[in-house]
């Protein structure tokens, strides 16, 4: 199946450049790592929804249209441009097309492109669903999914990465627990929350190098079941990188830097599938894998693994 066929009525008519009819004249500026992320072309309702979803992460309107960070535009297209998708039992997916200077994305009522001309910018095209519900029900999710992809690429070009992980703060330092869906990120997050730790997100966290060595973990508003989308947080120094395994009792075994880098690469969504930018990502992760001790953590629902973990990490 060629790019966009599953989602678009006419994939060949995918916007070739950053143009179209804006939804309105409103803008928002999101204060996130690598930002600000300034998005223009929103309707009043869309702006309100973005502010409702991302709370204090939305900066002052005056910041929109400024310089620095990443600029994105939102455009309206007809509902007929998208195929109807039966979402019963469907796992969310986005179709990507990677090129040296752009990335195209197609999904459920979403067309988007990232362009490097030469700096990174984003464009998002979406529609109402024909029943006038788009702004009430679909837009926040569409917007967030676009933002996830945009951040993944932005963090990569800044030397970091977006990581499928649970980020947990213990003693003022951050641990990243990595693994694919079902590895136990949400379970571990709940256990950590119950044990008095702060959970940044149980789904996606930002990892970036620190100038003097080491790495920092930033909270992102991209959560599964644990974490909140609406508040900011200071960055925390990285204390450990842990691959999750479920087992009968808490245990730890160290990982080599190469295996840690491979783990990070496997857990870097979007960019790790991009042949034009995977090398850059791998270079970033080779450095980040050395920024803190790494290991495999086996944990169970019953046991407290934190004491063991603190004693095990060098």
């Amino acid at each position, binding site marked *: 199946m060629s790019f966009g066929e599953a989602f678009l009525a006419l994939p060949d008519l995918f916007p070739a450049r950053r143009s179209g009819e804006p939804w309105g004249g409103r803008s928002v500026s999101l204060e996130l790592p690598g930002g600000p992320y300034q998005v223009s072309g929103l309707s009043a309702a869309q702006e309100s929804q973005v502010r409702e979803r991302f709370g204090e992460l939305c900066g002052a309107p005056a910041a929109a249209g400024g310089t620095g960070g990443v600029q994105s535009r939102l455009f309206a297209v007809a509902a007929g441009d998208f195929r109807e998708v039966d979402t019963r039992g469907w796992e969310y997916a986005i179709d990507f097309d990677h090129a040296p200077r752009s990335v195209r994305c197609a999904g459920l009522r979403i067309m988007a492109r990232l362009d490097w001309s030469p700096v990174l910018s984003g464009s998002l095209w979406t529609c109402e669903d024909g029943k006038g519900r788009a702004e009430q029900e679909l837009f926040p999710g569409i917007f967030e999914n676009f933002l996830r992809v945009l951040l993944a690429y932005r963090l990569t070009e800044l030397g970091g990465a977006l990581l499928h992980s649970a980020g947990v703060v213990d003693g003022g330092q951050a641990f990243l627990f990595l693994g694919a869906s079902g590895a136990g990120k949400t379970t571990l997050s709940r256990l950590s929350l119950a044990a008095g730790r702060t959970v940044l997100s149980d789904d996606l966290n930002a990892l970036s190098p620190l100038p003097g060595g080491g790495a920092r973990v930033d909270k992102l508003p991209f959560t599964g079941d644990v974490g909140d989308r609406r508040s900011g947080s200071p960055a925390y120094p990285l204390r450990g990188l842990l691959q999750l395994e479920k087992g009968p009792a808490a245990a730890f075994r160290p990982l*080599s*830097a190469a*295996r840690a880098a*491979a*783990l990070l*690469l*496997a857990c870097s969504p979007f960019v*790790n599938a991009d042949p034009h930018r995977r090398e850059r990502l*791998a270079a970033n992760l080779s450095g980040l894998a050395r920024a803190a001790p790494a290991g495999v953590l086996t944990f169970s629902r019953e046991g407290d693994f934190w004491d063991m973990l603190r004693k095990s990490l060098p």
Partner: protein
Amino acid sequence: MIALDTVLRRHDDIRYRTIDREAVVVRQRAAEVLVLNDVASRILDLADGAAPVGAWVEALAAEYAVPRAELARDVLEFAAELAREGLLEVVSPATAAARPAMVPALGKTP
């Protein structure tokens, strides 16, 4: 069959990076990540599409304190395994009988 006079090269599809003597290998099309131990990592370095496997043995003999015959057997086994995994491809086939290859473990990450 891979023998000491076989010439192999790294497959175009792979990209790799050496970290603390281990190699992190990405298969581009499959978006799959492998980690290779130090010997396999060195073999990837040596598989330049020009030098035969026998030359790899000579190079590695200077790095590992292992009897030459044992080293040659291990290198042939690794080369065969890496070729089976699609990381190496034959440029110039063997003209002599190759040893049967065993299968060393390659660590895979999720």
